[in-house]
């Protein structure tokens, strides 16, 4: 090629050759991800669906769904899951918004505050459950010690075994663990609101509540929907924390859908019934995530 131009030899060069095969190369690049998705999402989902309609003789039928709908424990667990999710997500939003506003503003040691506020979120689910179980332990727990030292109670409270306190304790631990996620999302949203809007509102005489009401909240609308949808999906699936703290007890008072699916499948060996329950849970999750999906599609 010395002294002769590449064009003169008819050599089209690597870039052009690549451009010619672009569609094929594109498919090649996405193929590993597609194969992975099929292996870890599509295949298990189809297997679960098939199991859920497999009857003892190997025939297909929807009897397991019939059993599910007539099982009072299933409906009790659906109600409990709904209560757990609504309470957790609401508290996550309130606390997350408060924390996001705090760390976005001019608080002292803002960097440190951000790191500390994020800590609960980086703690693995099961570890958080075990830590809270110890905090709430009626014999050795630090919370009862503090309450008794402050003379707020005269007997240790049975946080995880009292029928009313156990669900509340679970929600309390879950709120602590989950609010930083909402905080991070809302913080990103807050930082994307143009400063000019606040300045204009101030010039118009808007106070801090009015600025929050008419600038911050409208500016956060989309991010709030995203946070709400994602948090709801995650809380419906919450497993490790519940399993580690109460195991669904006392009795079945803190059972949620994910712990029930686990029990039916791995402890009671009811593979088909557990699969039907998992499919029902997926349908529920799809319904919950529809507004989020619709919003994303509208944006696109």
């Amino acid at each position, binding site marked *: 090629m010395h002294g002769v131009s590449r064009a003169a030899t008819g050599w089209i060069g690597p870039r052009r050759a690549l451009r010619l095969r672009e569609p094929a190369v594109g498919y090649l690049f996405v193929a590993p991800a597609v194969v992975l998705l099929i292996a870890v999402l599509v295949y298990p989902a189809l297997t679960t669906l098939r199991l859920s309609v497999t009857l003892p003789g190997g025939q297909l039928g929807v009897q397991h769904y019939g059993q599910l709908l007539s099982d009072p424990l299933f409906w009790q667990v659906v109600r409990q899951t709904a209560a757990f999710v609504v309470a957790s997500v609401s508290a996550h939003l309130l606390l997350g918004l408060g924390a996001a506003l705090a760390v976005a503003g001019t608080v002292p040691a803002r960097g440190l505050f951000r790191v500390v506020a994020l800590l609960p979120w980086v703690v693995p689910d099961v570890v958080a459950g075990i830590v809270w179980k110890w905090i709430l332990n009626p014999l050795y727990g630090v919370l009862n010690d503090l309450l008794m030292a402050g003379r707020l109670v005269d007997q240790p409270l049975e946080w995880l075994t009292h029928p009313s306190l156990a669900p509340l304790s679970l929600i309390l631990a879950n709120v602590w663990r989950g609010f930083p996620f909402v905080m991070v999302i809302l913080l990103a949203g807050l930082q994307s609101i143009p400063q000019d809007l606040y300045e204009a509102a101030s010039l118009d005489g808007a106070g801090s509540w009015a600025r929050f009401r008419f600038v911050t909240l409208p500016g956060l609308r989309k991010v709030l929907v995203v946070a709400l949808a994602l948090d709801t999906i995650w809380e419906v699936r919450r497993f490790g924390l519940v399993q580690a703290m109460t195991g669904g007890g006392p009795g*079945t008072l803190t059972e949620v859908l994910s712990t029930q699916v686990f029990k039916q499948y791995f402890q009671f060996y009811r593979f088909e019934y557990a699969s039907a329950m998992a499919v029902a849970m997926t349908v529920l999750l799809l319904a919950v995530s529809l507004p989020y999906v619709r919003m994303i599609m509208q944006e696109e």
Partner: protein
Amino acid sequence: MRRSGGRLAAVAVVAALVWTLAPAIRAGEVVTLRFSNWHLVETVWGRSLREAIRIFESRNPGIRIVPEPISYGEKEARYQAECAARRMPDVVKLHNFSLAMFFELGCAADLTPFVQKEGADFLKSWYEFPIKSLTYKGRLMAMPGDYMSMVLIYNRELFRAAGLDPNRPPRTWEEFRDYARRLTRDTDGDGRVDQWGFSMPASKNPGLPLRILPMVWSFGADFLTPDGRRSAMNTPEFREAFRFIVELATVDRVTPPGVTTFGPQDVRIQMAHRRIAMKIGSGWTYPIVNAINPQLNAAEVLEAAPVPAGRRRITAAWLSGWIMSPHTAHPEAAWRFIKFLTSKETEKKFFEDNRVISSRKDVNLLPLVKMDKFSRVIVQELQHARLEPQLKEWPEIFDAFATALQEAITGAKPWERALLDAHTRVEGILARR
């Protein structure tokens, strides 16, 4: 350009070959076996097992054992998933109630051909009962491991401090209740109870049946009718047993608060720190409690006695089995390892380290087992011991009971209502069969 591309490809091919073949070249003839056991996560047992592995490897240089620790509660779920993916560890340990399910699922290799090769007398060293229990459809599917009866473990110092004779443990359930009341005390005079007579792991955990069954059975009750087709949880005997257990926590208040969240280890911690005086346990109790708090001087302070008797003298038996994966690539090596784990020498070591009783008669006849104060009682009580029902539905049936127990203890339901609901649920479970 093309030449350098070719060179690059050649280098890549060589590198890939080296990377692929290197482990095989390094390993030579060494066979690697994956070995999973929940005891690997425990201080005392874990050490003992790792020592045994080292001994085995030194005698079998061609076999390398890779320990895979797992939690007690997680093992069935993980092994099932691994079995379905044909990735189950080569050798695992399970206890009797889940063994039946693994046999049914085809998650255990048939050990009969290996045993037959060892000769006609090979199994004669074991008790007949464990061998029979691990035989499924005429084939031996697991080799017996520990075989123990559940007994009453108590703290003689706390007995003495409460004015009770430490050499005379309770023999009946009424006596037991009376002892437990006297052992529930405020020991530091601050007006609050800080020592309880009895504790049990009443959370939903696989250790609960072993502690509950002796009580239920000794009241003359059972979970199922003799033909196994109906629930027997509505019989007067069962109601009496259930009420007795519930009232230990609700009326007598001889159990620590939060009993429905306790697992077996919580109860051991309570015993190690003198917070409770009595518990139901077995051979493993003393070494674990001793490891938690060596200052307790568990060997001296703790005692074992038969579980109190009601209408009949009966207790629950613990039996574990060593399983070979049906998908192992090295069945001969896996069998050699199982044979080593169940040999007289290794079982003796396990006794010395962990105080677990072997299912081998020749080990239990050794003077060190016969002279040990815990083992003597545990071996003696084996004649009154029964295994948990080996039914596929047993975990779900017992879950119905545990749910009722928790509901009654925490006051979520009156005990009669909780038990009736459990009975109805068990009837539903059995109707599906």
